[in-house]
């Protein structure tokens, strides 16, 4: 395990800038999650660290040494790919053993066997070891491809949306497992995803990517409570933050602010401006209220047994609003 540092990394594909001036410090033992929509540059970041793509500018260091010019093998990283992770012509056992049999490792047969069994145990796939990789369910394939990384003990694990193809139940199970495994091993992990729940639940630190730029980096709580921009604020939190013209609740906006950002839980009910209820979603543990305020849609939460129904009137007022300027940057 080691520190990994990206300094002003940039990467272009023809005329597309995939990464622009990206700097990132990953400390030993960190679980860093990079959050961003498709095309934000998540995969490119991982491939650049792994040495599969060469960067156009900046520098990457692993354990204090620049990796410029090193081959993927020399960088001592393990990677879980977004797609095509398992070799279809091999069994699960051979897939897991593949990284251990590389010329880099020089392990004896017994050690390989032990390591494979250990990882299979952790990921609950011991009973599938002799299956062909193609004869697995999506969740099992996923475990095996994570296992292919975990059999090694590299400077850093790079994971590219490893849970994105799974159903909700499996995903939440594997989230917990992965977090536990990381904590047990004390592993350094860079995990990229477009799923904010994965970012919030697993990360020790979250980075938010926007079109190849790192727009914020901090603890999940810090990024959630103090978003640097409207873009970051909309990336985290469900239901999404409400963005309304700054003056809908009257004066009080700091100078320069054009937008007020209200998280659903930052709306106090029973006072202030009156709104019309347009829709009520009972989710069991909570109820989502869709409100109409002068033609602006607004979503907030209320208790599970709320008696409100569409057409009712409800007055609301902001509590702890966030303010943004016309470019979406945070003000005040």
């Amino acid at each position, binding site marked *: 395990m080691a520190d990994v540092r990206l300094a002003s990394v940039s990467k272009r594909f023809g005329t597309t800038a995939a990464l622009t001036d990206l700097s990132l410090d990953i400390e030993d033992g960190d679980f860093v999650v990079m959050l961003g929509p498709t095309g934000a540059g998540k995969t490119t970041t991982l491939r650049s660290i792994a040495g599969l793509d060469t960067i156009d500018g900046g520098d990457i260091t692993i354990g204090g040494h620049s990796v410029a010019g090193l*081959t993927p093998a020399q960088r001592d990283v393990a990677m879980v790919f977004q797609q095509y992770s*398992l*070799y279809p012509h091999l069994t699960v056992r051979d897939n897991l053993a*593949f990284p251990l049999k*590389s010329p*880099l490792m020089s392990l004896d047969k017994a050690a390989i066997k032990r390591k494979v069994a250990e990882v299979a145990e952790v990921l609950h796939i011991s009973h599938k070891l002799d299956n062909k990789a193609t004869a697995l369910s*999506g969740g099992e*394939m996923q475990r095996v491809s994570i296992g292919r990384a975990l059999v090694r003990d590299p400077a850093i694990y790079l994971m590219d949306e490893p849970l994105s193809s799974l159903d909700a139940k499996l995903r939440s199970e594997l989230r917990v497992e992965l977090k536990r495994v990381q904590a047990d091993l004390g592993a350094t992990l860079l995990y990229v995803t477009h799923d904010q729940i994965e970012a919030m639940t697993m990360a020790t630190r979250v980075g938010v990517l926007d079109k190849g730029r790192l727009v914020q980096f901090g603890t999940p709580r810090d990024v959630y409570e103090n978003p640097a921009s409207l873009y970051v604020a909309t990336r985290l939190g469900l239901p999404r933050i409400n963005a309304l013209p700054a003056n809908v609740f009257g004066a009080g906006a700091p100078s320069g602010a054009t937008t007020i950002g209200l998280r659903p839980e930052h709306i106090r009910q029973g006072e202030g401006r009156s709104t019309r209820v347009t829709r009520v979603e009972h989710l069991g543990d909570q109820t989502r209220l869709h409100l109409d305020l002068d033609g602006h849609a607004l979503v907030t939460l209320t208790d599970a047994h709320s008696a409100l129904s569409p057409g009712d009137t409800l007055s609301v007022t902001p509590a702890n609003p966030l303010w943004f300027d016309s470019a979406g940057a945070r003000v005040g």
Partner: protein
Amino acid sequence: MSGLSSAWSVTEPSSRQKWIAGILVIGYALITMMPLLWVFLTGFKTPPDSISYPPKVIFEPSVEGYVNLFTTRTRVTPSQLDALPPPANFAEEIVRQRDMVIAGPSKFGERFMNSVIIGFGSTFLSIVLGTMAAYAFSRFRIPFTDDLMFFILSTRMMPPIAVAIPIFLMYRQLGLSDTHLGMILLYTAVNISLAVWLLKGFIDEIPREYEEAALIDGYTRFQAFYKVVLPQAATGIASTAIFCLIFAWNEYAFAVLLTSGNAQTAPPFIPTIIGVGGLDWPAVAAGATIFLLPVMIFTILLRKHLLRGITFGAVRK
């Protein structure tokens, strides 16, 4: 496989449709196989039966054609025949019924071996070179890739025999005329463009991530190629190999032109059997039958790969 069959089962044909389809397929197969079947049967006829009119469908089988194929014979007078000791084996017995004795083995065995060496040798070479070239074109940024690929294809835009005279002269200069090496190189040169194009298509279909995973895990580029790409390209390699073998195996024109003795293959040799002592159709048919076998066996051996299709089952979608 199971995915495929369940996809079809949405419109499972009725049993009547299946019957009709089955009859059509079998009927078509019988029609296309008639000439082959006729050649096969002729190989087991006696020379008189083979040219009788009307043609005989029911006949007494004989291995005379095969005996004649593998031997050369000389005619003897009845008195000489009587003076001989009793025939040592069944072949001698058959030959003596036609007032002849076996003078020695024919050249067929040798020519057949030449075909095997040249056919399989050039197939092997085409596949080795073709796979490596296709891999390079598929994976590395090569300047003028499209132009080079077009150039490779363009080598097949005229019939190879159009350059027969230059090749004939060149081979004479280089001492490659009538050598196994010369024929292997020639057939490889003709097949390589097909091999590169077919194999590039197959290798393009194999996701790079497989090799990249291996590279990250510490394998060298060549090891990744060998351990990851080759097994997954097996289907493509098998079908390409069959195409290459069929061309090299059946090639006639260059073989006539460039080989006469040492490296002569079976195709130019078989017709020469006709000339030896009358029209010996059974021997020709026997030669053709044996000549068919290797390609048939090769295809059957690789059948599994041909039918299996490319399994990208381990892909998460």
